[in-house]
């Protein structure tokens, strides 16, 4: 916990330092995770990032195209008028994991869940509603704050032995065991040099009342905007979370190749 506290202090200090520069950034492409929306008719998609599409200047939709077939998911982002110098957007998403979980409950290699639970996974889905506030710190740096509530709707009991005790996955599925959860975070995005940008992202998942009640995720990435069509990103993800076996840190490599078009 002390390590986590030290780390959080450092992140907050960095935010304060960057806050000393005041500026604006209205670059709306490659802006996932901010309150900015894609320009109308533009889409962006990555190997691991969702497909995003600007329906209008005030509405954006997104979904994971490959995952869509086994775990239907859909997000809607709407932008609002500025609030005290902050660009503001709301994010609304729905996620249906039942079919995916039943698919991976199988014998042999690839069996992430035990096949004994195949028939016990109930029909369920989650609804997330959140708000994103973004503000430019300097001409080249942007800060975003996120906060949201995740609710699960379940049509039967779920066996607590069906959890997938892995980083990233556990914290995102925990809502189905706890019924609800909170998710908040701070992102810093900006230019380093030339077409090289950075992203520092922190997320906190809270599940009040659960035995395993929190997960903290931090991502640091270098983003190479080769053009408005291609972005290559590479970095790390650091995760501290509580699991049924206790708490654990994980460090994972992160890589993505994104393609966008107006």
């Amino acid at each position, binding site marked *: 916990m002390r390590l986590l506290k030290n780390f959080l202090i450092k992140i907050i200090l960095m935010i304060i330092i960057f806050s000393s520069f005041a500026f604006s950034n209205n670059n709306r492409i490659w802006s996932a995770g901010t309150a900015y929306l894609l320009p109308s008719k533009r889409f962006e998609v990555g190997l691991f990032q969702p497909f995003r599409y600007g329906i209008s200047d005030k509405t954006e939709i997104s979904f994971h195209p490959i995952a869509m077939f086994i775990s239907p998911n859909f997000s809607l982002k709407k932008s609002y008028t500025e609030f005290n110098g902050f660009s503001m957007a709301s994010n609304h998403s729905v996620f249906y994991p039942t079919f995916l979980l039943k698919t991976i409950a199988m014998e042999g290699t690839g069996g992430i869940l*035990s096949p004994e639970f195949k028939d016990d996974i109930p029909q369920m889905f989650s609804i997330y509603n959140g708000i994103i506030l973004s503000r430019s710190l300097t001409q080249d740096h942007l800060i975003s704050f996120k906060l949201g509530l995740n609710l699960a709707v379940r049509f039967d009991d779920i066996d607590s*032995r069906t959890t*997938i005790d892995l980083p990233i996955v556990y914290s995102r599925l925990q809502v189905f065991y706890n019924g609800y959860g909170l998710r908040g975070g701070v992102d810093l995005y900006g230019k380093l040099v030339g077409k090289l940008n950075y992203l520092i992202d922190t997320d906190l998942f809270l599940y009040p009342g659960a035995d395993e009640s929190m997960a903290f995720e931090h991502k640091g990435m270098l983003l190479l905007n080769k053009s408005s069509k291609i972005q290559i990103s590479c970095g790390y993800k650091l995760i501290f979370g509580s699991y049924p076996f206790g708490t654990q840190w994980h460090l994972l490599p992160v890589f993505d190749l994104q393609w966008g078009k107006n």
Partner: protein
Amino acid sequence: MKRFKKIHIIFIVMFCLIFQFCDPLVNKFEDTEDAQMYKAKSIQNIPTSAENLTFMTWNIRFGVGRLDWFGDCCGNKVIVGKHDVYANLEKVAELIEETQPDIIFLQEVDVESKRTGYIDQVQWLLNNTYFNYGSYASMWEAQFVPSDGLGRINTGTAILSRWKITDATRIQLPLREDQDALTKYFYLRRNLLKTKIEIPGFDDFWGLCLHLSAFSTDDTKERQLQRVFSELEDLEDATFVIGGDYNLLPPGADSLDYCDEDKCEDESFHKAGDDPQHKEGSYYVEEWDWLQPLYDRYHPAVPLAEYLADEKSYFTHTTKWDKGFWDRKLDYIFSNLTWIAGSDSTYQDACFDRDLSDHVAVSVKWEVTQ
């Protein structure tokens, strides 16, 4: 262009560095490394002298009793509820309390496995029996096994003792060579747990616990035994007891082929076209004399002649408890000192009637004055 090339190199180097620092999914272990030390929550009644010492070996099947587990008895269960594991551990502790071994060699003890509710069974047994000290060596430690829903696993061998364990080493035994690379990466890595124990009256006493490969179809167990022999040769001037689940039959055993006894409903062996011809872990024909050197060099808890005179009374394992009693002997204790004649016990009825495990506990006594 040059600058972009540099950026690409930075990307690749950064990615490789981060990948390098990431935790491996599976612990591949060193050849030798310190074993994990344990201590009971409260230390009680450490005997200051010892006359007769009782040693026991027992494969407790990760505290799931006779559950129809998918991996070893044609069952379909994988993940057991905490409540059921605690209930079975209570029964294991009960037999230990009744039989009062001074040192116990345990196999298949889970310490952090999803399949058994992440209960640290070594610590639980220390806290719920009279044992004071323990040592643990993992034979399978993976953050996630993506097969059959196993998930996170940490299981291995343990030694529990009334007296302090002052030194504990995990010695890696040779791996199976009859598996593909992916299976081998995620599969078990058997070990020999070697501990030095402060028994009153002994300057140099060593307790060793092992669990040899169960399903190998090549010479893995023979190679593992050779590694064990080299360790025992180093202890020639000391006193040692070695107990465990050897997954081998005694030389001269009446039956060497258990394919029919162990086969599941949808399996067929020995018939033309069957592939494989024999069930993994059930066919001992080629291994019939691999234990002979142990019988030749050391003192078995159950002398071979006694075993061969009445095999059934010494059987310690079965895979089909619903169809009959114990049907083979796999669990042994050897020492370089002689045992008290006739002091051995094979707890067949207690383990069978109470559904404690798929293995029987075996114990034997020593006279310290020797």
